[in-house]
């Protein structure tokens, strides 16, 4: 008998999404400003329901298609909070730049559902369908900018390339399905353990490689990263933040589960490839970021760099490294949201998103400049900010597996990244601005930004409780391995 209570967060969040879209139909135009509040309160309710019913449960649905464990629970909570924060940072932007707020929030909530499903899926087809649900939502959101060709252009590029990537992934899934005979991760592992790994034939390799390719597209790892800068630049800014944090985290959740419970027995075969991809990704991301002059593009390349760091953890394949990945996802997520909140606030009042537009920001709005500086320092991995603690944990975990040179490269890359973050900071504090009017922001956006900055410090200075939660989550992931 299927226990549908295990699905309650997914059911309620679906209802919420329809509710928001429905409310949009009936609300008068001047009342649409309540939509973000409906969405955020709804998300908090879903969060409460999830914590109430599922905390600490270790079960599965439909014979292993969906897994309810500490790992999926961690990501559920992470995605719900992330969604809440994205709704909060969106609300002023949406008011000015998006035509249909109801659809925007509704689809945003659907994408949270998709991410929750991705983290919980224990099987390839489920993973694929939730991945597609996520992608579809993101295609729409990316293309939803009201004015400007950039948003549509970004949408076209994203959907065409995304569809190619998912076709590859699907082909890979069909190969695995045919040759291994199952799509469930745990069963796949059993079959692969039984077979001699040197007996892997070309078809199976093709399957694995195609799946890796499809997921690498999602996380924007080199050489599947080329869509990222264009799409990041063109998308509405809150969606850029969401892409950089949410869709990446969801894809990593899937990768971690799939690699650890599906393909761990043939680890030697794919490990070297991931090492090379990780090294290329971080180096290319950080080097190319040096030459950028649009802040969103710069952050796109910086996020590519961060994907490189995270991939090192996948290579290491230990509970410790997985802790590191999850921790860094949280630290990077908080920091990135703060950074994008600054970008959105500046864009709302000046319409600039090039680095030159940041000139003299320190005099025009000291708080905004300081928050941006904090966020950038955290991205660069300076101590006492979230970025340091999480990165350090990740690097240590990877070094523990003997990949010292890779960690060395990552630390060197952090140095390079400091250089281009300092360029932005220099621009804010030194370069004179042609426009010196003092910028005034609403109390609302200032307090959202304040909360995010506090989070940056909190994760950086007192990561203890967070680390404990994450350690439990990653242990539950490794409990599937026989």
């Amino acid at each position, binding site marked *: 008998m299927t226990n549908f209570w295990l699905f309650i967060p997914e059911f309620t969040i679906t209802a919420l999404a329809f509710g928001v879209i429905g409310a949009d139909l009936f609300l008068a135009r001047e009342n649409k400003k309540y939509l973000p509040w409906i969405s955020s309160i709804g998300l908090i309710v879903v969060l409460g329901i999830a914590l109430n019913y599922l905390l600490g449960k270790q079960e599965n649905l439909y014979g292993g298609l969906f897994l309810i464990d500490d790992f999926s629970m961690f990501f559920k909570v992470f995605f719900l909070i992330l969604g809440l924060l994205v709704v909060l940072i969106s609300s002023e932007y949406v008011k000015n730049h998006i035509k249909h707020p109801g659809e925007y929030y509704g689809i945003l909530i659907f994408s949270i559902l998709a991410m929750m499903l991705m983290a919980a899926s224990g099987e390839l087809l489920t993973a694929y369908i939730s991945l597609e649900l996520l992608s579809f939502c993101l295609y729409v959101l990316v293309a939803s900018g009201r004015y400007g060709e*950039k948003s549509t252009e*970004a949408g076209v590029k994203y*959907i065409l390339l995304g569809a190619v990537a998912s076709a590859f992934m*699907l082909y890979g*899934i*069909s190969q695995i399905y045919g040759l291994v005979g199952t*799509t469930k991760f745990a069963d796949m592992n059993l079959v692969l353990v039984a077979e001699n790994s040197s007996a892997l034939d070309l078809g199976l390799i093709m399957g694995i490689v195609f799946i890796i390719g499809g997921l690498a597209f999602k996380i924007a790892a080199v050489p599947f990263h080329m869509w990222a800068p264009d799409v990041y*630049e*063109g998308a509405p800014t809150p969606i850029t933040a969401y892409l950089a944090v949410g869709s990446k985290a969801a894809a990593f959740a899937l990768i971690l589960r799939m690699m650890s419970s599906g393909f761990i027995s043939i680890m030697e075969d794919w490990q070297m490839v991931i090492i090379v991809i990780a090294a290329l990704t971080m180096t290319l991301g950080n080097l190319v970021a040096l030459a950028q002059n649009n802040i969103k593009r710069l952050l796109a390349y910086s996020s590519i760099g961060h994907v490189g760091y995270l991939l090192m953890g996948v290579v290491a394949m230990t509970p410790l490294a997985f802790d590191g990945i999850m921790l860094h996802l949280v630290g990077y997520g908080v920091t990135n949201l703060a950074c994008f909140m600054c970008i959105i606030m500046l864009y709302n009042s000046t319409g600039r998103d090039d680095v030159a537009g940041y000139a003299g920001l320190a005099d025009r709005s000291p708080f905004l400049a300081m928050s941006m500086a904090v966020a950038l320092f955290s991205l660069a991995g300076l101590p006492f900010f979230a970025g340091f603690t999480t990165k350090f944990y990740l690097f240590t975990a990877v070094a523990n597996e003997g990949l010292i040179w890779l960690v060395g490269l990552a630390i060197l890359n952090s140095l390079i990244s400091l250089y281009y973050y300092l360029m932005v900071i220099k621009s804010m504090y030194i370069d004179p601005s042609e426009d010196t009017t003092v910028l005034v922001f609403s109390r609302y956006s200032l307090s959202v930004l304040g909360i995010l900055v506090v989070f940056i410090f909190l994760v950086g200075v007192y990561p203890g409780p967070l680390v404990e939660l994450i350690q439990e989550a990653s242990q539950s992931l490794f409990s599937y391995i026989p």
Partner: protein
Amino acid sequence: MSLVHFQILSAALFSIGLYGVLARRSAVLILLSIELMLNAVNINLIAFSAYTESLASTGQVIAIFVITVAAAEVGLALAIIINLFRSKGSVDIDKIDVMRW
């Protein structure tokens, strides 16, 4: 006719689709090429499930899912492409390079 033949058919169809994605300049034709790739996957899935006893036809179920997802994808992509056509008056992807550096 054996499984290998179907696999070759599927791989060929996939490659033709991929060639179309790389060679075509019209967004709509690229989309059609992607459909070819997805149909190659369907052939692969159905062939596997038909020729392998132990798979018990689950491949056909997966294929139905794939067809559904593909339909949704085409609908969405066409909507965005129409949007592109409205703003640019063209669906030629050579012309969409506002963002490139």
